[in-house]
């Protein structure tokens, strides 16, 4: 749903030919940005692995196929767990759940953030006060303990994990999006739209939203990073969906089966590195979006300009 909204810029941009240019140059800028390319390449590899997992490692990855706690070898590239499962198969299959939950949580919490942020900024007054209060309360409540409490009371399952992560994750994006929407709300073209009698929903989603596409993009990436990390944390605590194979569950079992104490580093290293790589790749794309859309952050060759841009 959010993707559909993100693609909307064409509607306002089409009105004036000049407004179209930034859009095209955004795509161009992203595609020529080294950070963005590196990040996207890493993400593509992981998405490909996730999609191809059933082909690469057919069957249930958690079935016991070999001797327990074997070091990496030609037969089992990443060794085996204390139960005798193939670590590589677990890691590749784990990407499916981790990416799925991360993306779902990312899109859902960004969507909630957009709704709250836009409503706050557009309606103002009492609605803004109330929504800001709720947002700030959620920002202040300690995230991890809240996560644990919610997960403990709700019936275990994938739906619970996603719901809990969205509940604890939306507030940050709502605050960022609200302040951006507020500054656009005060622009003349929004006032013109109000005067010309456009409906509230249309102004929010067709006039304001397309103009903050880059912030929405940044928020989305940050939310996906949060989703992947928080899911792993929740599962590591044994509060996730124990029936799926995911990076967090792999780490939970590694800890539970004493992989650290027996020295089986190959059991817990791969899943952790995968989470870090995905988070780092998304962060790179995020920096690139910032660089492309915010001229102040662009690298400028002359030393004087560098100094000025850095001073910001």
């Amino acid at each position: 749903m959010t993707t559909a909204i993100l693609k909307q810029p064409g509607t306002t941009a089409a009105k004036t030919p000049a407004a179209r240019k930034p859009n095209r140059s955004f795509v161009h800028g992203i595609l020529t940005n080294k950070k963005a390319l590196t990040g996207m390449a890493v993400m593509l590899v992981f998405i490909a692995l996730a999609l191809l997992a059933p082909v690469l490692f057919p069957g249930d990855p958690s079935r016991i196929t070999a001797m327990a706690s074997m070091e990496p070898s030609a037969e089992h590239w990443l060794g085996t767990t204390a139960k005798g499962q193939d670590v590589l198969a677990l890691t590749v299959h784990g990407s499916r759940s981790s990416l799925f939950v991360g993306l779902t949580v990312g899109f859902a919490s960004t969507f909630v953030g957009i709704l709250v942020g836009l409503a706050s900024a557009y309606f103002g007054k009492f609605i803004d006060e109330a929504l800001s209060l709720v947002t700030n309360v959620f920002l202040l409540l300690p995230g991890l303990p809240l996560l644990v409490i919610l997960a403990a009371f709700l019936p275990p399952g994938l739906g619970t994990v996603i719901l809990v992560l969205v509940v604890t994750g939306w507030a940050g994006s709502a605050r960022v999006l609200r302040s951006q929407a507020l500054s656009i709300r005060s622009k003349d073209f929004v006032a013109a739209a109000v005067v010309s009698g456009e409906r509230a929903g249309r102004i929010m989603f067709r006039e304001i939203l397309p103009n903050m596409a880059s912030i929405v993009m940044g928020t989305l990436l940050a939310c996906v990073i949060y989703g992947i990390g928080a899911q792993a944390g929740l599962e590591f605590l044994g509060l996730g969906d124990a029936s799926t194979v995911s990076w967090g569950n792999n780490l939970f079992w590694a800890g539970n089966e004493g992989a650290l104490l027996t020295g089986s580093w190959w059991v817990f290293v791969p899943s952790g590195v995968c989470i870090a790589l995905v988070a780092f790749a998304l962060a790179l794309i995020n920096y690139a979006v910032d660089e492309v859309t915010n001229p102040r952050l662009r690298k400028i060759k002359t030393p004087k300009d560098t100094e000025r841009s850095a001073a910001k």
Partner: protein
Amino acid sequence: MRFILRRLGFYLIAFWASITLNFLLPRFMPGDPVSRMFARSQDRMQPEQIEALRKLLGVDDRPLWEQYIGYMTNIFTGQMGVSISRFPTPVTEVISSQIGWTLLLGGTALVIAAVVGNLLGVLAAWRRGGAVDSALPPLLVFIGSFPYFWLAMGALYLFGVVLNWFPIRHAFTAGLEPGFTWEFIGDVGAHLVLPALTIVLVSIGGWMLGMRNTMIATNSEDYITMAEAKGLRPGRIMLRYAARNAMLPSVTSFGMGLGFVVGGALLTEVVFAYPGVGYQLLNAVQGLDYPLMQGLFLTITAAVLLANFLVDILYVRLDPRVRSN
């Protein structure tokens, strides 16, 4: 003063929200978790204790608003019921026996990370493009991409298991008599190294980058140029003129960090089996100990709100702009 009152009102609302959440969760969750808990542990309890817990957790026939008022009264008079996993210790007693360890661990890590991180940030901004400025930020961002508990596991494996430099579990060696003896303090210190180190490692980057960015803005202020023109020593300008004025955002972060001290060290405490509030919270969850869970969550929330409020008061002292509004 108006500012302080506004903030106080906000924190009270936040606290009310978390109490209400606590009240509603066991009453509206599907699957009736509370009955499950009673089924598991009924034989160990006295009838009147069961009755009290039923009321606390909402398994009674009174109308909802009456339960709500009763619940509020209980919370504000400090009656949080009896822990089930550590029966028959009252919840408040369990919490007070463990919050000290959490404060020790979180406090140590926070102070070290804030001091070292801010100093590194000051240095990075002062020598822009120098060794500290160009090498550390990317490294710290990369470290920050790892899941925190995974880094803790790595540190535990490397320094605890392979190198065997530090103890890997608990807050002190079992069998050692707690007291103010050098032996005990040294033992506690040794147990503190790994958990504190991992927290410092992941949180130092935020301090450094935050300080660096504010400090760069401060460096271009006129009074810095003026100080340079007066011929003051660079070290004095850096610390007394630039860093001092760039401190304000760090004060805010410190307040948020104080909240992290009580609640956020949960994963650390779990990895290192450190007997603090977070570790206890997970144990309570696993043991279906709902009274203890609720008590811990309220304690953690109260600590976060209190820390933030203290920072607000401090802010009024430090920043005259807040006072004039």
